[in-house]
Structure formats: C-alpha cells, structure tokens
C-alpha cells in the first residue's frame, strides 16, 4: 500500500509543475551569483564590450585579494578620508557581533523575567510587545533621527548599539515560549542552595535554551552583516562592507569600476554563505521552530 502512495507522489502533476518552477527558480538564483563571480574575474576593459561569462579574451583578473586594498570609498568629514575594504570588514565584524549580542540579550532577559516573575508589569510588558508588533507605524525615521541627534548618539557606535537593544520583536516571543516550557523546579532547587537571582538566570535557566539563543544570535549576525540602511541612516561615517558597497556603487559614475564592484559584492556574500553552509540547520531550523500557528 505504501508503495502505491509513493508511486503516486512520484508521478503527481502537481510535483511536476512545481518541481519545474522550483528548478527554474534555483537556476535563476544560481545563474545570477555565478555570473556575478565570472564577470568579477574580467578585465575592466573587457567588461565594457563583453560580459559573456565564458569568454576571457584579455585573460582572467583575480581581484579578490587586491580588492581588500583597492576597493575604497571616500567619505566627507572635516577632512575627506578614504575607507578601504579591509577596514570595512573590520567594521562589519565589530558591528555585527556587538549588535547581534545586544539584540539577542535584550529580548532574552526580558522574556525570562516576564515569564518567570509574575508581577503585574510582566503582563503589561508582554502585551506591549504584542501591540508594537501588530500595530504598523509608518515613517518615523525623521522623528527617530531628531531624537538620536538630540541624545548626542548620532553617528556613534554606542548609538548604534542602543538602537538595537529593543525587545519588542518576534524573538521575545520565541524566547518567551521557550522559557514557558522550562520547568521552574531547577531554579527553585538552586534558590534553596543559596543561589542568587542573577546566578539562576545566567547560570542555570538561560543555558538550558542555549541552542535557541545561538540560532537567534546567528540570524541577527547575518542580518546586521547585510544591513546597510540602518548604518547609512544613523551611523554613516563608519561603513561596514555592506554600506561600503552602497557608497561605492553611488560614487561610481562609469562602468570602469564594475568588475571591482562585483568583486566587492561577492566578498561581502562569501562569509555569510560559509556561515550558512556550516550552520544551515541552526539558521533554518530556528525559524521553523518559531513558526507561528496563530
């Protein structure tokens, strides 16, 4: 009987049609990335008149090492200054790691205390998260910019961290439901042994949901690695690699720099693809776990 079912699956018209559609989709995505890579290997002169990825009349120009020093953007300051790709990668790592840390920590600790410490305010905070997530607010960038400048944190590293320290997001709910399934008996036993509240939270309860925390951290890391608009808006003079790409593209008026631009694009992409290949299950699993059923 099972064999019959399997056979039906195999020859389903649905599977055939959707399979073809998915095949075309995958081909297009791969084609874009592969072409980007092949075109980045072209000499600048050749790129002008021939972008076919299988023709290299002037030879191959492998720019992936030299790009670290040749890929540059000029920024306005008291004195205009250059930022190179290696510096941008340094900024990317610092920014993504620290912002991912703060963005994970904030909803994590808030979910823990609102779930386990049943004060009235815990219920209020939980409702605030739900309301903020449901109510769509449009066009507050002008207001946020005004406040950020008023607080003196515009274009500062600490400012970018503060902006990422919010807890009114989906991951609060993910952590909240994770803590809900955790028995409080572990904590009670620790309290009996004389453990303090911070010790119970950081030493016992939080480590119990370590896999989820790691997945959320990874997702935030990838998000901030790729993010350029927040930086462009609030922290513009310390470009990460993603923001550097935006500046480079904006400042490049001719196509003479295009192979270098494509090299930059691929260089920004490679670290997250490696991360994705290593932690594929973590990155894709967490979202499935967080799948909303209502």
């Amino acid at each position, binding site marked *: 009987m099972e064999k019959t079912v399997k056979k039906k699956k195999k020859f389903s018209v*649905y599977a055939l049609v*959707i399979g073809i*559609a998915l095949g075309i989709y995958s081909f297009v995505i791969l084609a874009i990335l592969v072409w980007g890579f092949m075109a980045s290997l072209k000499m600048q002169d050749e790129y002008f008149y021939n*972008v076919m990825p299988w023709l290299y009349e002037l030879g191959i120009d492998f720019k992936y090492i030299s790009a670290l020093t040749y890929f540059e953007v000029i920024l306005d300051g008291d004195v205009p200054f250059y930022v190179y790709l290696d510096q941008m990668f340094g900024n990317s790592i610092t920014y993504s790691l620290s912002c991912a840390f703060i963005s994970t920590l904030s909803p994590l600790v808030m979910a823990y205390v609102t779930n386990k410490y049943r004060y009235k305010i815990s219920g209020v905070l939980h409702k605030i998260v739900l309301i903020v997530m449901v109510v769509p607010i449009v066009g507050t960038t002008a207001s946020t910019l005004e*406040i950020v400048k008023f607080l003196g944190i515009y274009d500062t590293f600490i400012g970018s961290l*503060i902006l990422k320290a919010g807890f009114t997001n989906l991951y609060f709910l993910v952590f909240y439901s994770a803590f809900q399934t955790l028995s409080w008996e572990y904590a009670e036993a620790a309290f009996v042994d004389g453990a303090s509240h911070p010790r119970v939270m950081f030493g016992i309860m939080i480590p119990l949901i370590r896999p989820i925390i790691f997945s959320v951290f990874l997702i935030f890391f990838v998000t901030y690695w790729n993010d350029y608009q927040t930086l*462009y808006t609030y922290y513009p003079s310390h470009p990460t690699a993603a923001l550097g790409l935006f500046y480079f593209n904006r400042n490049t008026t001719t196509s003479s720099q295009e192979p270098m*631009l494509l090299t930059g694009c691929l260089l920004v992409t490679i670290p997250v693809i490696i991360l994705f290949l290593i932690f594929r299950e973590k990155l894709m699993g967490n979202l499935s776990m967080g799948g909303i059923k209502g």
Partner: protein
Amino acid sequence: MEKKLKSYQSKNLITGTWKAKLFYGCVIAIPVLQCTIFVFIVLLNSVFLSFKQYDYGTGEYIFKGNIFQNYKVFWSTISSSGSSLGIATKNSLILWFWTSLVGISLALFFSFYIVKKYKGSEFFKTMLFLPTIVSTIAMSLIYRRFVDRFLSDFLEQYFGVDIGTPFYDEVKMRFVMVVLYSCLMGFGTQVLMYTGVMSRIPESLSEYASLDGINAFQEFIHITLPLIYPTISTFLVAGIGAIFTAHGSMYDFYGPYAESTIQTVGYFLYNRTVGDGKLLAEYPLTAAYGVAFTLITVPTTLIARWVLDRLSPEVEY
C-alpha cells in the same frame, strides 16, 4: 531539604522578596527605557513634529500658524492626480499585491512540495532560503547588472531579441524589474514558516486522503490550506501592515535617485529623510505623511485581521 523547598515555594520566593524586585527592576530598566524612547517617544515626537513648522531663524521646530498645515499639504498632494505621493501610493499597492498575495500563494505551493519531500526538496528549500541570507545590496547590485548587461546582451546576441537595459532605459520597465526582484527574493522566511507548520500536520491525514484517492493538489487545497490557515492569515495581516513601509529594494538599486514614477511610499518617505543634503525643513511634512499613512494602515490592518479571523475554518489537529 524538602521542607525548606516547600517553605520557599509557599512564601512565593519569586515575587515576594526585595531582592527579587531589585533584580527584576535592574533587568528590565534598560530595555524598557530603550522601548520608551525609541518606540513611544519617537511616535509621540512624530505626531508633534507633524503639527510643527521649521523655523529658519532658530533652526528649531515650532508650532506656527495653522497647525494642520502639513496635513492640508498631505491631502492636497495625495488627492491631486499625477502627484508623486499619489503615484507612490499606487505603486505600494501594486508591490503589495505581487509580493504579498502572489508571493504567499507561490510560497505555499513551494512549501507543500518541500514538505511532501518530492524530488530535490532539500536543495530547493536551501535555494529558496539563500537570497534571505545574502546581502540585499550585494544581490541587487549583481542582479541589476545581470539583467542590464548579461541578459540584455545574451538575448540580443543569440536570439536577436532586444530588451534594452530594463533598469536604465524604460521607466515603466524599471518598476517591473523591482517588483520581479522583490518576488524572487522574498520566499525564504515564508517557506521556512510554512514548511514548519505543514510538517506538524499528522501524516495519517495524508494517508487517509490517499486511500480516498485524492491527488496532491486536492490534498493541498482541501487539507493542508485549511489546517495552516492561521499562519497564512498572520502573513497576510503582516503584509497589509507593511504596505506603506516596503521599499521593494528600490533604494538598493537606485539609491536616492529613483524616478518619481516608480517610487513606493516607503521609499518616498525614507528618501525625504535620509541622505546627503536632506532638508531639515522637510521633516515636519514627512512626519505628517507618516502619521497619515499610519492612520490609514492601523484600522485597515485591524479590519483585515478581524475579517480573516471570521473566515477561519473550524479545524483542529
């Protein structure tokens, strides 16, 4: 020991002691302050700002003259035919239709294929998720050149078809390309959510259905869709909430220079605020536009949620 534990429990150790309250206060202090400033005060400030005008003398925002002036400008702009804000509103709705309605439908078909473990499903799942993790700016820059340079040259050289440079030549085509890109890149998160929920549907339901002779498409329509309706409805509501904030990667493609005929509201508002040489004097009007669109979006979202809840099929598993 057991006695001690019981005594701790009965005294409600968690909420009862000053140490617990102090700890609780310390933990929530910074996140609550952050939320107060960057959610509530920002929102309030946005509302106040929308009633103010920029004072060129002092460089400050002040209440001056008719405090509804900015809203009057909003109304006259959006109601006049051919205005950039009117076009942006129309474009936002078109983008929403394609990315949300068409995008959700396709994502559902794809997810069902993956959950059913048809040929290559793991590979396709990875491919659908890949654009989600690749930098949007990098992907969009490559995509634009792929279409404008490679595809254009390839089709002309090998098939004699001249499509020009879609992102550059024809204004109408530019918006089509942005919408197409947004659809192509937007499946990842949705597919993960849908596959997550679909995989929780008991296998036995599918087996019974097979015994009754229904095919995969019928199973998808009559069994899977009703069972995952709450998730679909959540995505639909979220899509409506994002109608006027979505850029559709337009800023990635064009930076601040997108043609006014292809702009969306999200892009229009962002572009009035951020970038070199943006006028501080424009902020109050931009804030008024934001508040006005919020006033449109909030009830629309709530009504949509109410309607979708009403339409919810009575199924449990």
